């Protein structure tokens, strides 16, 4: 069995809105080094930004004493991103936003982050930490064979 080489890059963000852009830029740099197409890099940037915003706002509740961990693991044909916070994790799976319900005031105009994450990457899972802390979202984006 051949060994798959993985390269890790880690970033630690303060729980302050706006710092998701640091993770976004780092993820984009790694994805470009791996040879991802520009449109997939853009998908990844939005997914990583939304995951970090959720971690900052909902996981760590904007508590600047807590940080958000972002671990990028570059494999041969995929990039995995874990965004880790000190919250209890998401209990529900993301629902598809209903623009008609939003337009008629029957649904909050916000609440699209998790949907976007799931729609823009190849895999997305939300994992609650065993001790009610250290929850994470795990994203995977795959390098298509024709672009490698």
């Amino acid at each position: 069995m051949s060994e798959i080489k993985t390269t890790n890059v880690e970033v630690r963000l303060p729980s302050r809105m706006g710092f998701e852009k640091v993770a976004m830029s780092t993820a984009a740099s790694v994805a470009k080094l791996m040879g991802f197409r520009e449109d997939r890099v853009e998908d990844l940037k939005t997914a990583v930004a939304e995951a970090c915003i959720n971690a900052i706002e909902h996981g760590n509740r904007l508590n600047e004493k807590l940080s958000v961990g972002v671990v990028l693991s570059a494999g041969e044909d995929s990039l995995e991103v874990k965004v880790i916070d000190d919250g209890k994790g998401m209990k529900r799976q993301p629902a598809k936003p209903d623009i008609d319900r939003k337009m008629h005031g029957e649904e909050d105009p916000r609440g699209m982050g998790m949907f976007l994450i799931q729609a823009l990457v190849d895999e997305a899972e939300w994992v609650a930490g065993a001790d009610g802390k250290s929850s994470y979202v795990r994203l995977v984006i795959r390098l298509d064979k024709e672009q490698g």
Partner: protein
Amino acid sequence: MQSETKSHVDQLTSPAGHAVTVLRFEGDIASTSKEAVLGTYQALSKATNKIILLDFTKVDYINSSGIALVIQLLIEASNSGQKVYAYGLSAHFIKVFTMVGITKYAGLFPDQAAALAAL
């Protein structure tokens, strides 16, 4: 950390002779952009500004909170009988706006000339 959102308003006339109010944004569209997006829109007279064109040409970061502000603008415009259109979005954000359904309520154009020609 988030770049400040700037906005300004231009009044144009389409080739067909319709008055078009252009809201031009610059910087990030995020949770901190409420005043720039909704405030600028709400300062306009709803009686006289019937066609609203959103210019995203100088915007390179829009997150879900920013998209929610655009949806709030669309809700107010719809309730006031205004039509909203947009242009200048990157291919990625055209895809995102389509995914969340915004394109059902705001027509998208590649640039200002194409938008004005259609209005």
